[in-house]
């Protein structure tokens, strides 16, 4: 079959794994939109509590908001792994048909779970509710049947990755990837049991949440970033792989015991104060390393790259990860501070910038890689028609998120002082904090940030579907360029 012309949107430009990746990316984008929309609803309810009261209560909107986030990020990661797998292993993806079936099963399951969230919402306090409606544990609310489905789906995915690498070429990148995926899926099991003891419940719940988000997900995006820097900038493999190992050492070295910062107040012994405090204080270091790595490589290649929007989002990722996960996390990670900030809008501020900065950005960077290839590896450098769209989408999404982050932090400061330090976190103390004008102003500014993000998202979608259309130039190739310059 002849490949379509450059600039024409056609999946014949892609290899098998990449075609499957595009499917994952499509669902990821739909869930990204859902995440933002339900976030807007939940944000509005802080300002107008009667809005949708009794129809879509805050707990429903918030649950869909955070679950859509977790799933779109995972789908983005799975998509990205399928995207780079054939290139990395040097052989077509093994078990692609199975991967395809699992994709549809997973997507169907996600749709059913969300419909139940929206229309059934809650259930009685028995085991049936936990199995079929809602598990009622933050981030992993998906009922147990869906948990089992997720485990089967990810095992299939894992099998495909391992089988492909075994058949083809093993690299440092695929080695780290396989070890990380194994940890990622193993950890999910830690969240799949019921216990009445809330301290034990939260202890293992954090194994899933923290060891995913602050360890295995970070390493996974390190893998994606390594591949992206090789592809977009032409950075040499030995450079990205050395950095990747440095990142793994620092990330796991700080992140695994950094888990202790979640064990200050849940009933666990107080030795976690210093273990959690010390190791989580180290957690920003690998994120600094990632910034240095990305910025240095961009400079070393004089910013010559094959895909401007992707490089833009990779840089946004490096800084967003460092500030959102690193700086914002560090600000309230020591127990002396966390005693007052734990469970306030501080956490929301950190959570928003960290998830966006660390994960949304790298997924969007990969969406642009896909958009480029879908049009036959089209030119995506300076002078591309309609470049204002990707630039403004990049700006609006980041500016909107920064506005939200700073606004939520202002509310968080007020909440931790008034509700926590002065009033002592009683019911009336909580509302004394929530009704204070300084808190409410933060919520209003957060809302403006949300609207700006929505606008940026609309622009991003428009751009992803149109960028490169009508362009006939082939993409700039950093590696060919380097070879030519070396020869000259």
């Amino acid at each position, binding site marked *: 079959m002849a490949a379509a012309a450059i600039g024409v949107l056609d999946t014949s430009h892609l290899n098998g794994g990449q075609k499957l990746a595009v499917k994952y990316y499509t669902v990821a984008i739909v869930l990204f939109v859902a995440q933002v929309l339900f976030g807007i609803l939940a944000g509005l309810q802080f300002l107008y*509590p009667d809005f949708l009261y009794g129809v879509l209560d805050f707990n429903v909107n918030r649950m869909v908001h955070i679950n859509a986030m977790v799933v779109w990020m995972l789908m983005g990661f799975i998509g990205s792994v399928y995207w780079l797998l054939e290139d990395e292993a040097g052989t077509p993806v093994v078990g692609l048909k199975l991967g395809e079936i699992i994709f549809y099963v997973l997507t169907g399951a996600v749709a059913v779970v969300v419909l139940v969230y929206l229309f059934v919402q*809650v259930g009685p306090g028995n085991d049936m509710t936990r199995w079929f409606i809602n598990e009622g544990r933050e981030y992993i609310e998906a009922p147990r049947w869906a948990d089992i489905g997720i485990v089967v789906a990810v095992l299939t995915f894992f099998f495909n990755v391992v089988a492909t690498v075994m058949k083809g070429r093993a690299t440092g990148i695929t080695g780290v990837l396989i070890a990380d995926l194994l940890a990622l899926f193993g950890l999910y099991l830690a969240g799949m049991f019921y216990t009445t003891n809330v*301290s034990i419940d939260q202890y293992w719940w954090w194994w899933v949440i923290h060891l995913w988000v602050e360890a295995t997900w970070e390493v996974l995006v390190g893998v994606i970033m390594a591949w992206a820097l090789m592809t977009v900038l032409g950075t040499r493999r030995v450079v990205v792989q050395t950095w990747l190992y440095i990142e793994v050492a620092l990330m796991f070295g700080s992140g695994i015991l950094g888990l202790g910062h979640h064990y200050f107040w849940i009933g666990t012994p107080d030795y976690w*104060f210093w273990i959690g405090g010390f190791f989580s204080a180290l957690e920003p270091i690998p994120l600094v390393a990632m910034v240095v790595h990305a910025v240095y490589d961009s400079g070393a290649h004089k910013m010559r790259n094959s895909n401007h929007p992707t490089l833009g989002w990779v840089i946004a990722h490096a800084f967003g990860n460092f500030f959102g996960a690193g700086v914002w996390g560090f600000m309230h990670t020591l127990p002396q501070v966390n005693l007052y900030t734990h469970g306030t*809008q501080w956490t929301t501020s950190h959570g928003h910038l960290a998830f966006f900065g660390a994960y949304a950005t790298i997924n969007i960077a990969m969406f642009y890689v896909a958009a480029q290839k879908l049009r036959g590896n089209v030119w995506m450098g300076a002078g591309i028609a309609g470049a204002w769209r990707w630039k403004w989408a990049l700006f609006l999404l980041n500016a909107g998120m920064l506005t939200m982050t700073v606004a939520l932090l202002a509310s968080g400061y007020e909440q931790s002082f008034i509700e926590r330090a002065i009033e002592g*976190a009683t019911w009336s103390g909580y509302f004394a904090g929530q009704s204070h004008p300084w808190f409410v102003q933060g919520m209003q500014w957060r809302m403006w940030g949300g609207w700006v993000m929505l606008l940026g998202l609309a622009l991003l979608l428009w751009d992803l579907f149109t960028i490169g259309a009508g362009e006939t130039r082939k993409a700039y190739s950093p590696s060919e360029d380097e070879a030519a310059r070396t020869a000259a």
Partner: protein
Amino acid sequence: MSAAPWWASENAWKKIAIWVTGLSLVVLIFLTFDSMQQITAGGKRVPDYSVINQRIDYRFDDVRKYQVPVIGPEAPLFGKKVSAEEAEALVAHGKKTFQGRNCINCHTILGNGAYYAPDLTKAWLDPAWGAEAARESLMIEFLKNPDQNARTFGTGRKMAHLRVTDEEAKALVAYLKWVSSIDTNGFPYNFKTIQQGG
């Protein structure tokens, strides 16, 4: 190009990554065994479920310099002392209701959850319930009809009507009473408790 020094070599960092990860995991697993032992219900930090038969307070400790739970004399929930098995069943029903009614996506408990409604770690001890004698019935009434018994302190924010039954409300109260007895290393700090014991 000359070979990279050892500290910049791919192979050295590969080994460091493996060793650091392995060592961290070993330490975590060791600490997990110790923590599990310390937070099993019935231990010093997390009391047995039958603690709902006793008065629970939260008082400043001069050595630790923050408030700690204090288990007081007998004060059965709903005026009826229950056996250890009955207590566990009641608290379990409460926990399952807490999960099934999706409480965590408005409230926090032990500080974890959502931030649309108050933290529930010490809800049992909250002075907003007024008098100790009225507390249990007020809590049950509130949980069953939160929209009609809303106390929003001027924010207009009401708890959602979650169709909580009488049995579930009682179980939730038992669950929250038990949770208030957990030693949380002084979280929440500076909490003012309801007047108990005359």
